[in-house]
């Protein structure tokens, strides 16, 4: 089924969906290659980031930004959109999306954020105070609006399919990718450029995290290892910035154009836990993991035992993550998290995790859960990847949860990729 062909017959299982491009901008690198290199290097134990500059005690602003090769039109966008444009451009380059040969009206863009162009508000307010609001100009609105990143990616890449920005708290990245997966699987479009992006908002939100007791006490501004997912001494998370974008397309579409599948998406589910307490989401997350396990099994991906979790060192939320994984997968699940390396980038973190999951599957290695030294009592009952190790299974589950939202997505090594032939 495609837009406009409602009656076309499509089995409920839909089309196979493969990932053909990855893009990432994050504190340890502004390209996939840089991130991969960093994860494989012997990074100093107290210094994960090489490109992030700690600000006000938080990871945030990316150094050397914008990059020299950023196009002029992109420089006019807010940083939140710039991150997405760069990550999307890298992802499309890796996917070798040659637009000249494609129907661009069948390529969608789904890029979400949680706070978007927050700093633009400060600039606008200053202009207003100075009576110079007209200087905000035509781009003022598009810098601040929540769909700004998505529409800027579409405009920069000349993509003409549906463009929107889904937002669902810390699950935003996963839900945009999950939504893209469903649209490709069910034939709404052929290709989706999807993920999430988030701007440096530590000077505003960092203090709020502190007031929630969600940030580490006495953070050493030069020491990012303060983020300790699942650790007994975890004290909260550090905010960071960046974007994670993937290109999804149907396996047939990838094969027709000779693209190499990097991984295959084999399940996705999202849910919500209707509790007034923002850190309660375990029941909903358990439900989504169980749904995804069922979908992955039906897709022939086998059982899911390896998890890259959205745990970010928060006191209550990490325990909710552990509880949900334990309830859904049992005590043999092998769990890691990226927040010890990257901090917490609100919407973008779960998109980063999808990119990293694909990278890990392709390299056959599970990255260690950086910062985890002593497993917390409330996170016991799972196996944690404390040092990088060989990935034993060909599939990985990515989970995200927080502020009531919960989502899970499974990816597996593409059979085509395994066989060494595209498509």
């Amino acid at each position, binding site marked *: 089924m495609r837009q406009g062909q409602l009656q076309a017959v499509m089995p409920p299982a839909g089309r196979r969906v493969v990932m053909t491009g990855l893009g990432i901008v994050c504190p340890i690198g502004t390209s996939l290659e840089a991130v991969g290199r960093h994860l494989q290097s012997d990074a100093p134990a107290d210094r994960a980031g090489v490109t992030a500059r700690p600000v006000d005690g938080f990871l945030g602003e990316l150094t050397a930004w914008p990059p020299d090769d950023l196009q002029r039109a992109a420089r006019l966008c807010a940083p939140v959109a710039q991150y997405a444009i760069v990550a999307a451009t890298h992802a499309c380059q890796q996917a070798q999306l040659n637009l000249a040969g494609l129907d661009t009206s069948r390529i969608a863009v789904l890029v979400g954020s949680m*706070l978007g162009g927050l700093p633009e508000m400060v600039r606008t307010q200053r202009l*207003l105070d100075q009576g110079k609001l007209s200087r905000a100009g035509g781009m003022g609105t598009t810098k*601040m609006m929540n*769909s700004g990143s998505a529409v800027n990616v579409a405009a920069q890449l*000349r993509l003409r*399919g549906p463009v*929107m920005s*889904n937002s669902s708290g810390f699950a935003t990245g996963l839900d945009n990718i999950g939504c893209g997966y469903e649209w490709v699987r069910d034939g709404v479009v052929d290709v989706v450029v999807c993920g999430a992006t988030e701007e440096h908002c530590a000077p505003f939100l960092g203090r709020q995290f502190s007031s929630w007791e969600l940030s580490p006490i006495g953070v050493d501004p030069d020491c990012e290892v303060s983020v300790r997912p699942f650790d007994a001494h975890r004290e909260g998370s550090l905010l960071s910035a960046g974007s994670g974008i993937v290109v999804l397309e149907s396996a047939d579409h990838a094969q027709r154009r000779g693209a190499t599948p990097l991984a295959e998406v084999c399940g996705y589910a999202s849910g919500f836990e209707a509790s007034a307490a923002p850190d309660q989401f375990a029941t909903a997350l358990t439900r989504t993991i169980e749904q995804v396990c069922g979908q992955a099994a039906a897709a022939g991906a086998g059982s899911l035992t390896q998890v890259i979790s959205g745990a970010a060192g928060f006191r209550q939320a990490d325990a909710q993550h552990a509880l949900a994984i334990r309830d859904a997968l049992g005590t043999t699940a092998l769990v890691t998290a990226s927040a010890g390396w990257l901090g917490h980038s609100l919407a973008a973190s779960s998109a980063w995790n999808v990119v990293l999951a694909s990278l890990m599957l392709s390299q056959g290695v599970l990255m260690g859960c950086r910062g985890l030294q002593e497993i917390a009592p409330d996170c016991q009952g799972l196996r944690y990847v404390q040092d990088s190790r060989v990935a034993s299974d060909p599939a990985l589950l990515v989970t995200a949860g927080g502020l009531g939202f919960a989502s899970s997505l499974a990816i597996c090594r593409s059979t085509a990729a395994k066989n060494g032939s595209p498509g």
Partner: protein
Amino acid sequence: MYKRVAVTGMGIVNCLGNSVPEVLTALREGRSGVEIVEEYRALGFRSALAGTLKNYQPPVVDRVYLRQMGDNGLLATAATFEALRDAQLADELVQHPRTGMIIADSGTYKETYQLCHQKKDLGKKLTGLALPRAMASTVSANLSVLLKTQGQCMTVSAACAGSAFAIFHSAWAIRLGLQDRMITGGVHWGSWEFDCLFDSLRVFSRREDSPKEASRPFDADRDGLVPSTAAGMVVLEDWDLAVERGAHIHGELIGVATNSDGREMTTPSGEGSARCMRLALEDARIAPENIEYVNAHATGTKLGDEIEARAIGEIFGQHPYVTSTKSGTGHEVSAGGCTELIYTLLMMNHGFIAPTLNLHRIDEECAMIRHVPREAIPADFDIGMSNSFGFGGVNAVLIVKRVDA
């Protein structure tokens, strides 16, 4: 074969009224809800015009929930409560894993401003509840917590086409059997924090001497749009399940389409919106001549109205009636896609066409379509279409059909 989608509940709060019956009366009578906003005057806006709420009483919500909600969340709650009452959905169906919620929000500009300004400029401590009020997903998260829905939950953003995108998204969730019912729509809370940017773009009408005549889409003397506060929500259901539970069905959502221009941020291409209308027709499996009414996106800007009129004329000729209800409501931004779907359903089910108010002299560049100027006319139609377009070149088109048609 995909599942059919029924509209079983409608709720609305806007400058024309605080409920669907009040809005229906205003549409029939051709009333405008536009006024002068003194705050905007004091702030030195080029134009102080806006569609404002009248006698709006926020719904009673427990403080536990209320303190996490911004004004936009509370306004969406008011419209949602009405839509759920209208749909007569039992609590167990609302609080169900197969009931989802996708809502569009123009943005949390006011809350975000407070977050920035309090901390950075006033040196005030932020409360621990600023984030749930300011995050992009605040509206759907708060409503989901309040109503205890358990299915899909997200806030979508697609500029001025936001709620039409939310409905598109929701319709597909039902069509594909991912969810049984969706509570969907959009909200826009007008505030200086948002409107100041549009004001700086110089797209607002400056007809402050006659506010009710300021919004005049397709008119030769139009001089811009008027922003407006609104929330519109609908309940969409799997058709079979709606019939099974004996729900009153307002109409069937038979065609949905979204796309983008892929060109510029603020100037519509025309090609994208025309392509989107054709996609929606294809999706509904109907011909252009089956469309009897078009609720145009037309906001009253010089370029936008011309481009849309040309696209409608090119596809439909002079066959369907075309009006812009924004002439009375102003531009409801992210809420507009849903509110205008509700207006279309109201007209369809009550046998009239709400006019384009203030259309005294049709612009020659917009003359190729069948206008209904100034006064409502009786009309019996079965299929109507609603257009929504937005910044970034995003386009969405929804087509509804009368139940007994």
